């Protein structure tokens, strides 16, 4: 991947997370097949779906609705009641920037601004090609290393705008 001015461009199409519709339907069915048609299984199924796909999609809700014969609105209602479910497809890479006090004092805002500039998205958003998601998080508990950024599961301390830029560039 190369950065060009304020935005980034791809070397090739991103295929890793791209699943064909058919494949998604198949994978969803696989999850559903593990569960008896009982209302009590709704939450476990939702967890299963989120684990597999990273989020709960409209198609998943429709599939679950058919399987359990529960209306889509009811499933969506149950899912939105719990904070751990997400409803938009996350990017292949999640960047989290800490906004805890220590990080803040040490300039985490500048890190955030840099990531926003590079990806063209705001916290809570995902790039339109689903490459990156950006999140803001409260203290990571690694204040000694402030400011902190977490790319996928890896924690990086003492961040600076050039460093985060380099990190993003290194992502395949």
């Amino acid at each position, binding site marked *: 991947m190369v950065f060009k001015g304020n935005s980034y461009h791809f070397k090739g199409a991103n295929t890793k997370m791209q699943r064909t519709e058919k494949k998604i339907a198949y994978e969803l069915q696989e999850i559903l097949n593990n569960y008896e048609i009982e209302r009590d299984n709704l939450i476990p199924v939702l967890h299963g779906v989120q684990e597999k796909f990273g989020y709960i999609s*409209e198609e998943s*809700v429709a599939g679950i*609705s058919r399987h359990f*014969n*529960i*209306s*889509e*609105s*009811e*499933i*969506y*209602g149950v899912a*939105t*009641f*719990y*904070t751990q479910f997400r*409803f938009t497809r996350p990017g292949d890479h999640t960047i989290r920037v800490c906004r805890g006090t220590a990080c803040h004092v040490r300039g985490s805002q500048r890190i955030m601004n840099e990531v926003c500039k590079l990806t063209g998205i705001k916290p809570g958003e995902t790039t339109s090609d689903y490459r990156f998601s950006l999140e803001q998080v409260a203290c990571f508990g690694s204040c000694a290393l402030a400011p902190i950024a977490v790319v996928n599961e890896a924690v990086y301390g003492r961040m600076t705008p050039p460093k985060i830029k380099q990190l993003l560039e290194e992502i395949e």
Partner: protein
Amino acid sequence: MSEIKLTIDGQEVTANNGDTVLEAAQNSGIRIPTICAHPALEPYGACRLCVVQIEGIRGNPTSCTTPVQNGMIVDTKSEDIVELRREILKLMLSGHTSPCFACSDRTLCEKYRPSPTKSGKASRCTFCSFRDSCELRKLADEFEINEFDLPVIYQNIEIEHNDPFMDRDYNLCILCGRCSRICKKIHGRGAIDFINRGKNARIGTSFHKKHTETDCNFCGACIDICPTGSLSDRFAKWQGAPDKYDKSICILCSLGCSIDLKIKNGKMIESGVVDFTPENRICAVGRFAIQQLLYNPLRLDFHQVRVEDGLIKDSYENAIDKAAEELIKYQGDQFALIAHTAATREEIYLLGKFAKTVMKSDNFAIAKPDKDKIIIEPSSVLEKIKNGTVKAVFTTGNYPDSTLIEKLETLIIADMFPSENEKSAKVVFASAVLVEVEGTFLNAKGEIESLSAAVTPPKNVYPDWKIVCDIAGKMGASEFAYSSIVDIGKEINQEGIQEEIPTAPVPSPINDVNALPKYYRGHKLAGVVSALSIFSPEAQAVKADIIPEELKSTVEEKPFEIVEKKEIVPNTYMVSVYAPTIAEKCQPGQFVIAMVNEKSERIPYTISDFDREKGTITMIILEVGRSSREMANTRIGQHLAHFVGPLGKPVEIKKYGTVLCAGGCYGVGAILPIARAMKEAGNKVICIEEASSHYLLHWEKRLADNCDELVIITKDGSAGLKGGAQDAITMLAKKEEKIDQAYIIGCTFMMMLCCEVTKKLEIPTQTAMNPIMLDGTGMCGACRVSEGEKTKFACVDGPFLDGLQIDWIELMQRQAAFKIEEIEGLPQVPIEKSPEEHFCACSHT
């Protein structure tokens, strides 16, 4: 079932095992207030309004969920309980947009505003279409709630008008769950449910989809069961509370569903299910289309006969004469009659009898809708028209097709809508239809159901059966003089007529919106009830093509560009238009007339600000009624079709001493240029901004920057002082503020109240009469005002008139009368035509 004995409020009561305490009380005539409970629904226990005290049970159980037990001692009316309910209700109301309860001018307000204002958003009760039927309001009044401990909240949830039938305003929702529960009960899989949690919890669809993209069948049950104004039938909502309920049958398809009618002044407001059960559910056509057919702008409500130059309107009697005169020439095989299936048994029988006995013809056919087309049976009748045997036809709708019509010498039509065939017709009768007709209907189950003519047809318009009876009478037939519908029914039985049981539509429209009836009397339903076109993909494709084209043409030709637009507070929009010549000339107090498109009404708007350098005019617009809705739905970059001004006499700017400028609603913006000019002229300027509640306050800073003192006052006391602008004036007078001149701009009611005070204080007062103007030219007379002895026209003599001289009572009464007329006239105008339009209505940014 075993009986249970218990005591409620000291009264010995028997109940069935399994009853709830609420049911036991209700069955013994003891009323407990409820909101979330409904006889059609299982106990739910969400609102807690039905709390009671039961000996031996701790706390305050909800009576709607507590089963009765032998020996229970229940108290439903103790002081503590009533107080607790009051608190519960207050809490519920503070999340609802109801500052009106805390307003001390409410009684007067409702007296002078007998019907709610047709606004785009219900930012308070006076702006809510459900005001007169609201259960919440009734309870609030019962508990005499007239103050809040916490300010009322307006949640600012986007109003959903993204389907063609319903408006859903969840800002009014109290989360009783009646709608989602009934939807689930009726359809098994509900279209709506509670979504999100905590303070974001609300009713909604999966992923906020439009109802047209969900399982929703548009049965309307959710609207009919909602205790508040959250859910409404867009076509019916402003008609007010019904004065009569009646039962009838929908005969638009062979299912013949039972419906409940809401009626006002003989006119149908809306229809609904007879009970909230899966068995009795109805389809979108039965729920939403009947009223839109009856009060359709295209509907024929006069009879026509052909003269040399074409068809002219004529009396019913003349039309009968003419029809009889024509038909008598074509007795025997030369005549054919085509009836249709969406008719009563009596009508079908009499039309057949007319063909046979009066016209002496066996050519009697019935037009039957069959999915996407109309089939006329028996087809031999069509053959005879084709081969020229039949020369005269009496038809009850838009059939047979025009190629066959050309072969005829005489065509008589009895119909509800105009058609191409009219061009060949000798006589066109307007028919009374559907729920306007008395009679019986044979449904697909073979049952005979009855219709009661519950709704009054247009004047001098009669059902088809009466039309043929009168023609028959005119032609000398004696056996067509019936004294009642019942007699016709008896005759059908005596004759032993074999009636064909119609087949039920498959799939059933009540389960599938794609299977909704498509025709009535040969007219495409989606063609006359445009809302239904959402279900016919062809019609939508056409629309999608048309709309951007239209927008484009406006953009190219019109100069008045909207450069800024936003909703500043609920239902109140700021719109800035590029109009340099107007901006150059305009003076404080003047107004402009704007038309959003060529077909809009001309509407005067007070100039709220102007910028000579940028060449812009800014208006504050309250969305009340059709034209301001069009304005509220414009987008930045769009061009107005018409924009004239400045109009009206400017206010006289000079040094008075202390000048008071009071504004409410749209008037907050309108007083700004006056305040600024008065201050520049060396006056001490005091501004008053009035609003119903804190969430309606706007432009405070702009006002404060242009005056010496700004007084904020809200009707519910949620910000600034509590009261109305008039109270603020009194307060200023008490502070010994000597006011030399006052300018008041707001609704008529607010200006009236202010003038009462300034009159007493002998303050010269000018009031802006814009809210009452219609066309701004003095032609319509709507803005006629009595100022002392003189009659003035606000649009030419004003907008500012001497508020102390105006006969406010007369004015308010005239406006109230005008408003009722306007609301009654409303169905004539389909409010929103295409789903695309609704979409832009809610996506303003």
